[in-house]
Each structure stands twice: as structure tokens, then as C-alpha cells.
């Protein structure tokens, strides 16, 4: 499997008054062709900023975004245009991401005409109908001439998906694409997006704050957990949910209420040392999680920033203590085997 998208030491800072705020700091991971990577974290952790940089909406202040091996900000105009077609976006809010003054057919036709997929309005209309059918909005004739306000939230989000599909993308960044939708509608949309993976080999960077949704959607993919601008853990979904390694991931998973009274009331909780979320303009030194972390070791965690380190089975974590203990344990096992 080859990487379609690579984020390399990605960094994005914003100037806020006299301060510089690092919304994303040294984020590196790759998304392979046909894979789903879910980016999860609490609000303000930089997941949306990372997503925007991945689709070229925001220019990084450091590091590189590579698409099929090429740095997107060093591409020539023609290549950049191709990349822009290949990487599409589904926004969170279907109420504000569709132009209220345009009929559905115009919303979908615009990119078809712009990118020369269709050469006249009639052809664009036929193609739009075809796209609506692909997103299960049938019969399309009923919807083509409607305006966004005449559609339900679920239908609107499907129109956004149809619009993203107009230019035959190979990669979609979906930012909280289902969080505004009611639960009964959410599932069918997620299933449809999953179907595009088998039908057209779609690759997703799926951003959500809901780990249960991430688990469902990225079951055979990976999840990356972000905290204050950095990825703290990344690994295959069942493994990350079932055996989280980073203390933040553990805390997060243990804190999430679940729609299962028995499980949610008996779940063991990780106690944090502090409930205060540090501000991005004043990120703690060393590991940003150290003031809250139950594993905190003075002199280690508050000194140097932990780097993402592979600890086997496709898992990488950024934690001094866990990585050290694991390698010590591995060393011990090695000695035992050696001695035997």
C-alpha cells in the first residue's frame, strides 16, 4: 500500500495579539491509498487545522503536505489544480455549506462545468442526476430544482457529498461530517461513505470528536488522537480502542459515556490530576499533558517533548513513561529468552 497523503512535521501557528499560538505542532502521519484515518480529539486540539492543511485550504507555517509524493505547495499550477480535484472536502454543517440562493442542480453543476467534466448545462444536469443517485437521493428529478432550505439535514449532507464527488476525487477530508445529523440518519450516511471505499477505492481523513463514530467508521483503518496540537497516539482502530497506550487516550476512553447503561456505569475511570485544560497560548513545557497526567514523573515529562515512537503492532505513542516501561519490559523478556 502506498501513501496517498503524507503530513511531514506539519506545523501551523497563528498570531494572536502579541503571542504566537501553535494550533498544530510537529504532526506527522501518512494516509495510505484506500485507507481511513480518523483524527479525534477535544475541541481546540488542532484536528480541523490539520484537516484544512491536508486539503490545501491552509498553508502550513512549517513542514510539508505531500500528495502522491509531491509537496503540494511546491507544485506547479497544473499539478496543484489536479491535486485540488483529487482532494475534496465534506464540511460539518450542511446548513451553511450549501449556497441558499442556488438550486441543487446549480450547486452540483458548478464544479462539473468549471473542471470541464461536463461541457454544457444539459450534460451537467444529467450528470448531477447521476451523482444524486450515487448518494441515494432518489428519484433525483424531485430534488434537482429544489433549494437547500427545502431539504432535510440528512438530504443536504448527501448533496454536499454529491458535490464532493463531482470531480472524481480519490481522497476526501470529512470534518465532523455527521455530528450535526440525528442518530438515525447518521448511520446511513456513514455506511454510504464506507461503501465508496469498496466502490471507488476512496481514501478518507475523517475528523470527529466522537470516538464511537470513529470506531465504527474506521474499524479496519487507524485512529490518531490529538492533544493540544500534537498527535499523542496513532494506531489500528480495534487496538487503539481496546488497548489504549497513551494516558490521554486512556483517560478519554474511560470518560466517554456510552449508550449502554451497564457498561457506562461500571466502567473504570482514569483519574486525572487536574481538570484544567491548558490554553494553547500557554502550552505546558515538555509533554503538554503532564499537568493532568496520572503517570507524570517530574524531571522527565516536564523537560522534553516526547516524540511519536513505534511500540509495535502499528502503534505509535508520544509518552516518555510508557515507552520507557515498554522497552524495559521488552528488554527483560529478551533477557529471559536469552537465559533460557
Amino acid at each position, binding site marked *: 500500500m502506498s501513501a496517498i497523503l503524507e503530513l511531514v512535521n506539519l506545523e501551523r501557528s497563528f498570531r494572536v495579539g502579541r503571542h504566537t499560538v501553535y494550533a498544530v505542532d510537529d504532526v506527522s502521519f501518512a494516509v495510505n491509498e484506500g485507507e481511513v484515518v480518523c483524527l479525534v480529539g*477535544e*475541541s481546540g486540539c488542532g484536528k480541523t487545522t490539520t484537516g484544512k492543511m491536508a486539503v490545501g485550504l491552509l498553508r502550513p507555517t512549517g513542514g510539508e503536505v505531500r500528495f502522491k509524493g509531491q509537496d503540494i505547495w511546491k507544485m506547479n499550477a497544473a499539478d496543484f489544480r489536479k491535486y485540488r480535484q483529487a482532494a475534496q472536502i465534506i464540511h460539518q454543517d450542511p446548513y451553511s455549506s450549501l449556497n441558499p440562493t442556488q438550486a441543487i442542480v446549480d450547486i452540483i453543476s458548478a464544479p462539473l462545468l468549471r473542471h470541464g467534466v461536463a461541457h454544457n448545462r444539459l450534460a451537467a444536469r444529467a450528470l448531477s442526476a447521476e451523482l444524486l443517485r450515487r448518494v*441515494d437521493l432518489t428519484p433525483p428529478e424531485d430534488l434537482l430544482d429544489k433549494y437547500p432550505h427545502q431539504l*432535510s439535514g*440528512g438530504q443536504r449532507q448527501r448533496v454536499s457529498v454529491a458535490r464532493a464527488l463531482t470531480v472524481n476525487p480519490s481522497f476526501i477530508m470529512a470534518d465532523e461530517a455527521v455530528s450535526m445529523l*440525528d*442518530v*438515525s*440518519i*447518521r*448511520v*446511513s450516511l*456513514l*455506511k454510504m461513505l464506507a461503501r465508496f471505499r469498496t466502490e471507488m477505492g476512496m481514501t478518507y481523513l475523517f475528523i470527529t*470528536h466522537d*470516538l*464511537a*463514530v470513529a*470506531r*465504527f467508521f474506521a*474499524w479496519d483503518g487507524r485512529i490518531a488522537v490529538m492533544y493540544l496540537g500534537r498527535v499523542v497516539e496513532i494506531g489500528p482502530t480495534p487496538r487503539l*480502542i481496546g488497548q489504549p497506550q497513551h494516558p490521554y487516550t486512556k*483517560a*478519554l*476512553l474511560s*470518560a*466517554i*459515556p*456510552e*449508550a*449502554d*447503561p*451497564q*457498561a*457506562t*456505569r*461500571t*466502567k473504570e*475511570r482514569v483519574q*486525572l490530576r487536574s*481538570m*484544567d*485544560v491548558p490554553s494553547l497560548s500557554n502550552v505546558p513545557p515538555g509533554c503538554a499533558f503532564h499537568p493532568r497526567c496520572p503517570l507524570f514523573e517530574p524531571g522527565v515529562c516536564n523537560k522534553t517533548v516526547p516524540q511519536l515512537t513505534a511500540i509495535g503492532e502499528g502503534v505509535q505513542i508520544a509518552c516518555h513513561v510508557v515507552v520507557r516501561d515498554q522497552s524495559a519490559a521488552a528488554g527483560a523478556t529478551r533477557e529471559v529468552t536469552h537465559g533460557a
Partner: protein
Amino acid sequence: MPPTVRSQSQHIKDEVTLSVDDLWVTYLARRGTVKAVRGVSFDLRLGETLAFIGESGCGKTTLGLALIRLLPKTAKIERGTITYTRNGMPTRVLEMDAEALRNFRWKECAMIFQGAQNAFNPVLRVRDQVWDTARAHGEGNTTRARDRMLELFRLVSLDPDRVMNSYPHELSGGMRQRVLLALGLLLDPQLIILDEPTTALDILTQRSVIEVLRNLRQQIDFSLIMISHDLSLAAELADRVGTMYAGGLVEVADVYDTYYHPYHPYTIGLIRAVPTLSGARRDLISIPGSPPDLIDPPAGCAFHPRCPYATARCREQQPVLVTVDLNHQVACWNWQVVIADSGALLVMQAEKE
């Protein structure tokens, strides 16, 4: 069930705090009359937590507002009774005059609104806002109000002195939400209504608010109505769950029954549509179609156009809530059929989609 889990239901008394009977609320809209709450009846006992779940537009917030008569001017309570009882003294909420209503709100029944943590007055210290509340509701003794508030702040795990002297912007979202909970309890109400209490909060903050609510429930006797679209919140805190669809209650049951043995096809669909973290990855189902237009709701059962179990009777006659099991009421003509095949038709319908 392990006893530790069930222990909170020991706080429930036999006394009924709130009794709602056949409540109808409509809104006047340009297109016609929106029937937002359609014939809702339920009883709430002292110390009990009842959660109303349902999707957007199902009437759960309107129901909450109607209970303390805070509906906007375009709304009208068409029919029904709301009886509130304290110390064996029943009062009819819908018959109260302005003065009685003012005394009822906050002293008897406090409501904490969605996103209200952002509704503090930004230029007043928390201390002054607490005092304003106390005075407006007839508490003239500063020390007494202050002592009560300090005690409540401790109950919601806040540092009382620090919070009292803070301005709202100095507190985090979770802290403000806890200040609100304490403020809601200031005048010792017997009923608290929470509308989407944790929706805008981050996961770890949400957890602290949930734990605080659970502690409060164990230390103070009050009844709680929780309105939320978040099924996991009800799973955490509720004793009983009422499922709403198109303005009506379709099922009211013990929380464990709602999640593990729901009888109404809509409840089954709703529960099975939510992904979970623990356990096997179960296949989720979706309910085809969308909720009906409440200006012109379908005849008979409002769910029939989306229901794979619908029969001729469902299209004509509206089912009412009937008690079918201990602590379990359902409004469905075919509930026996639904349980008999454990909702298999819903799964088939979702697969066909």
C-alpha cells in the same frame, strides 16, 4: 445487575412530584398549527431521574418549557394538566397566576437551559449573580444565601471562595455548568429540568459534570428531568427513559429495559443506530425516511410511514401508552409482534436501504 449500579434507584420515593396528563402544545406558524407536543402523560416520583430522548424536532424541549410555562408567545397549551406536589400539597401549574408562577419557578422547579453556561452576566461576579437570584426570590439574608451557596459549590466540586469572587470569563465551560447546577439548587427546588446539560462540553469536562450530577442526586432529594438527544447521557444517569417521536411519548421504561429490551420499533431503531465503544462492533441500523411534518402529522401512529411492522390499524388509530410490563409502557399496536422477532424486520429494512 450488580447492586452498586442499581443503588441510585434507592433514592426514589413513592411520592409523585410531578404528574402530567394528556398535555398538548401547539405553535402558530405561517403554514399552520404545529402540533409540537401531542398528548404526553407521565408521572415523576421524588428522587427519580427521568430522561426524555428523541431526535431534533420531536418536541422534547417544548415539553420541558411547558412544564414551567416558559413557552414563547406563539405557543399555546391546548389541553392537559400538570400537577406538582410538595409535602402532600398538590398545585395545578397551568392554573397558576403570575405571582404563583414566579414563586413556582426556581423555588419549586428550576430549569437549566441548553448552552446556559454562556448566559451569565459577564460584568458581574458570580457572588453578585447568586445574590441577585436569592433576593429576587425573597431571600433577604445575605449570610444565609452565601452559606447555602458555599455549601452547594462544595457539592459540585468547586472551590467556593475562588468561584464566588470570579467573573464568568475566568471560569471554564465545565465550571460554569457546575455553577449553574449549584445556582439551580440555591432555593431548594424539588424538581430540576436540564435541557442538553453536557452538549457543548468536551468529553473530560462532560465526565466531571456527570459525576457531579450523580453525587448531587445521592446527597440531595430532588427529581430530575433530563432532555437530551444524547443517548449515552441518559444511559449514565436516568432511572427511567421516555422516548419521544413526533411530539408524543412512544415508550416509557426503566433505563435498562429501554436499552436492552425496547419494545417500540422506533426505540429499537434509535438504540441500534448509536455506535458504542465497548463490546463487539455491532452492526448499526438506520431508520429510512424522516420524521413527519408536525403541521400535518400522519393519521394513526405517527411512526407508521417508517415502520416495517405497520398494519392497517396503525394507519387509522393512534396507539396510546399502555403498561405492558412492570415499569414499562409502550404506545404500539404491534408490540408483541415486535418483541417476538426482536426487531428483525427493522434490520431487514435497513439492509434493503
